[in-house]
């Protein structure tokens, strides 16, 4: 059993007799009514997404999981295909299971697969990844009306807000959880 104050993103819990991946967890101590954890849970059997707020102290059961290194291969339009780095076994996930991680997958991306009872159920990408900027407009000096930022398309296809000095072809580090620019790569 885990107390919900320690519910964290990536954990798998048993709730209402179903395994749920904690897609998002936010501990909030608001100063009225006591602390709580706001969660987004994904049902690993049905893909259903729900939002539940647990009071701090509410106990939930966690499920044994295994994290294994894998590699992204390709997507066939509907599903995203991966390969286990040790066994070379291949498996795939639907778009909805991959969620936001799909914005940062390029052929060969090293990531982790989450296994429950021997079955791969979800994917975790590194929180910080380096990408080449494929397309962006030249920065105009002194243009601060836009907050000193512009849009850049990275090689995975995602569009990231970057500082004006970033040029096409340069490498940048991206925070894949927030979808934000971190620094030059």
């Amino acid at each position, binding site marked *: 059993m885990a107390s919900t104050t320690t519910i964290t993103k990536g954990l798998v819990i048993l709730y*209402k007799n179903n395994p749920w991946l904690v897609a998002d967890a936010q501990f909030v101590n608001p*100063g009225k*009514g*006591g602390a709580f954890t*706001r969660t987004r849970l994904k049902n690993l059997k049905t893909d259903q997404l729900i939002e539940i707020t647990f*009071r701090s102290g*509410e106990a939930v059961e966690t499920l044994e999981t295994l994290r294994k290194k894998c590699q992204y291969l390709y997507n066939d339009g509907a599903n995203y295909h991966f390969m286990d780095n040790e066994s070379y076994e291949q498996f795939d996930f639907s778009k909805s299971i991959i969620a936001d991680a799909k914005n940062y997958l390029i052929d060969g991306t090293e990531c982790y697969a989450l296994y429950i009872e021997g079955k791969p159920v979800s994917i975790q990408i590194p929180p910080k990844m380096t990408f080449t900027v494929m397309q962006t407009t030249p920065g105009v000096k002194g243009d601060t009306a836009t907050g000193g930022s512009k849009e850049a398309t990275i090689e995975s296809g995602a569009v990231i807000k970057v500082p004006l000095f970033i040029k096409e072809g340069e490498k940048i580090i991206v925070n894949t959880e927030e979808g934000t620019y971190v620094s030059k790569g």
Partner: protein
Amino acid sequence: MKNHLHLAIARAEFEQQIRNFFKKRDFVEVQTPIMVKTPGMEPHLNVFETKFYDKNCPRRTPAATGGGKSAEGGPRYLNHSPELQMKKLLGHKNPFDKTDHFEKIFQITKVFRNGEIGGPLHSPEFTMLEWYRKNADYKTLMTDCENLITTLQTTLNFKSEFSMQPAARTLQQSPWPRISTQELFQKHTGTSLLKNRTYKQLKKAAKKLDLPIKSCKTWDDIFFTIFLNKIEPNLPKTPIFITDYPASQAALARLKSNEPFFAERFELYINGIELCNAFSELTDPKEQRKRLIKEQRQRKKMGKTVFPIDEDFLKALKNLHTSKTTAAGCAFGLDRLLMVLINKQNIEDVLFFPL
């Protein structure tokens, strides 16, 4: 990366317009201490504690301190709200000078809440606007809120990325809907608070809603679990006043005369974000003392620091009570209001150096 200069200009202009609003309506701006001997007693709030040292000070005699109240060594606390201090001013009475009293006061100050973190809406230090009116109740304060925000929308004109957003401009049609917690629970969950006044009853209702309530020890715990899961996520983006909270959640507020299970308290939500907390003030010092003692017990039970009762605060209430003066006050989170007005999603977007 936010532009700090633009943020500074926006914040200064924002606070200036708020000051103008209250001065135009004959409010007196006050500045009460940030560090106090007795903070408010709210059971769920944790305060920042510090200590006043007097070990190295020369022995204080009435002459050395100018004959006034001398500062004693001991614990001091950073205010989580200037509420008690402001009500002391509101109840201030000068037997030698009848003109020395306050009718309407406001303050913009920093407040501190220990451990208050999590999500895009919380910071352990934030800016609070509080205002108090004599001879008024919480309904007047709701109108104040509407007038303040619509005035800010028409007067503020930031020329930077902190510009007013079209979404915020559409807030203007007032009066804004006012809905009681009783109606709100009925509407979103089919649960009547009045018919579920006991812990057992409300627990049964929450179970029917399929909510995690094993850890709920009190009626209020269950109330919040239902509120957070079934109501808050479904609040409209447009402004809404949630009124008449259960009396157990309004220790400083006046009870509703027709239904004392509820108190005359409201919160304003815009965009699903709670912006303020306000009520018709309880002015009966005896009743107030009872409720403070109850909160002291609650704090002790929860393992939190138990504060002494602020006798000056009760004296001020007594002054209001004997002169049959009603009062009402509102505490408004200014960082959140700025967020809503300029459509920022995170409180850190409007703070300089988030803690």
